[in-house]
């Protein structure tokens, strides 16, 4: 089974970390990544940029593009995509295609990316 593990913390608190503290935290994460990569169990890892860089695309009667992160508590995170795009416009176009049902996607640029190990063996429920 493939599992997604999602990290949460207060952005204000993380933003108040000193550079040294931030580096120490990243170093810890890199240690964990190296360990699980060596075991062949690590998929892609991403650290997202702050929510100030976020854009939200919401579809209802009309498609809306909003500045800011996803902020509703009525809806739950169902999945995520990674796109490699040149511009925000390009990724918004992609996002518009995803929300053809009423719903919402949040676009967040990625600050740090580790591709993980190739050919993960885990079987997702409908995995190929």
């Amino acid at each position: 089974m493939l599992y997604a593990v999602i990290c949460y913390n207060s952005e204000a608190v993380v933003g108040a970390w000193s550079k040294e503290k931030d580096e120490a935290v990243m170093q810890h994460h890199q240690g964990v990544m190296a360990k699980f990569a060596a075991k062949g169990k690590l998929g892609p890892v991403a650290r997202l940029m702050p929510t100030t860089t976020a854009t939200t695309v919401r579809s209802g009667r009309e498609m809306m593009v909003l500045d800011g992160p996803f902020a509703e508590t009525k809806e739950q995170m169902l999945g995520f995509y990674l796109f490699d795009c040149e511009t925000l416009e390009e990724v918004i176009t992609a996002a518009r295609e995803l929300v053809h049902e009423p719903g919402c996607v949040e676009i967040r640029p990625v600050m740090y990316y580790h591709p993980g190990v190739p050919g993960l063996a885990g079987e997702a429920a409908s995995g190929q």
Partner: protein
Amino acid sequence: MTDLGWIDAAMTSARPQAVAALLRYFRNLETAEEAFQEACLRALQKWPVNGPPRDPAAWLILVGRNFALDEARRRSKQQALPDEEILSDTDDAETAMADRLDSEDYRDDVLRLLFVCCHPDLPANQQIALALRIVSGLSVQEIARAFLVGESAMEQRITRAKRRVSQADVPFETPGAVERAERLSTVAAMIYLLFNEGYSASGGELHIREPLCEEAIRLARLLLRLFRGDPEIMGLNALLLLQHARAPARLDANQNIVLMEDQDRRLWRREMIAEAFALLDKAVRLQQPGPYQIQAAIAAVHARAPRAEDTNWHEIDRLYALLETVQPSPVVTLNRAVAVMKCDGPAKALEMIEPLASALSGYFHFHGLRGGLLMQLNRNDEARVSFDKAISLANTAAEAAHIRTHLDKLMEEGKKRKH
């Protein structure tokens, strides 16, 4: 986690919101600060035992408010304080408070707190000192060190600024759209000043003071979290990030200035640049250009060039021309002249800056650039005069040393010619 660093981080990040809310309750800066201090003392006793509260800001506001109310009651009736348990028992109230904090008022609270520090009667350095003390929570000692003045002088400066501010009449009603926009732009200007004080120190041994830059970025991010859709605040954030991204390359091992064209671009902080690009992308979509966005766009042109010689100077010239129409100033024209020099040569650039001579006679960079242009035109004697003038106006040792390298070059060329 065994260390208690999280408490410090939680209190620092909750501070602007908590002090701002307490200011709204008590309408007095002194009381709000005292209440916050007291709440922090209680947090230091409670949190290590009970663990972090769900919402640290809500906890601190509630405990601070209870303390200040009791204090006021005690003063008026000389009653005994309620015991510690009642004062810090916030379990139920905290949830209600946290809900309210999500609402719009808290945004206006924090803006008001920042705005209070920007009173127009206060000189810029007092505004910055006050914001660092009240909003960022830096100690007087830390601020004094950052400004290179004695602690007691800084203490006095802050006390005076607080007195001035407390006499000012800042309305506590929710501001209207126009007033909010005015406050926002005043606060943005203060944050920009704070950053510049760190980016290019106005005095002292150190040319760059990173902690001031970092604090400015933290406040800019806070402002953007409150006003997520404002393109100028996006621009301000992008600008500060782009400028600060170059910090590791701006001085060499001997603390000498390295000009942008000579900087080792591998040292630039790529993460900050990427974040700035993301913010600029968002801002551009809104199609409301302003001075911060344009300046950020200029910095972005530099950041995009893999090598100095790849810089798109025509784009920079175009952006400065735009900035000249949005925010005309001799300093903007001076900066544009650098782009003109790269595109059309030193003679054109010199022609552009000569009319600025009286407006910028006391400005280090004017004489530095003028000297450089004259040197390129082989008018070495005039160049030397300009460089001498620049040195006499240099703000830091690094600035003076940088100009001296030009003078040395002129000296050597002079010698060569004689031989």
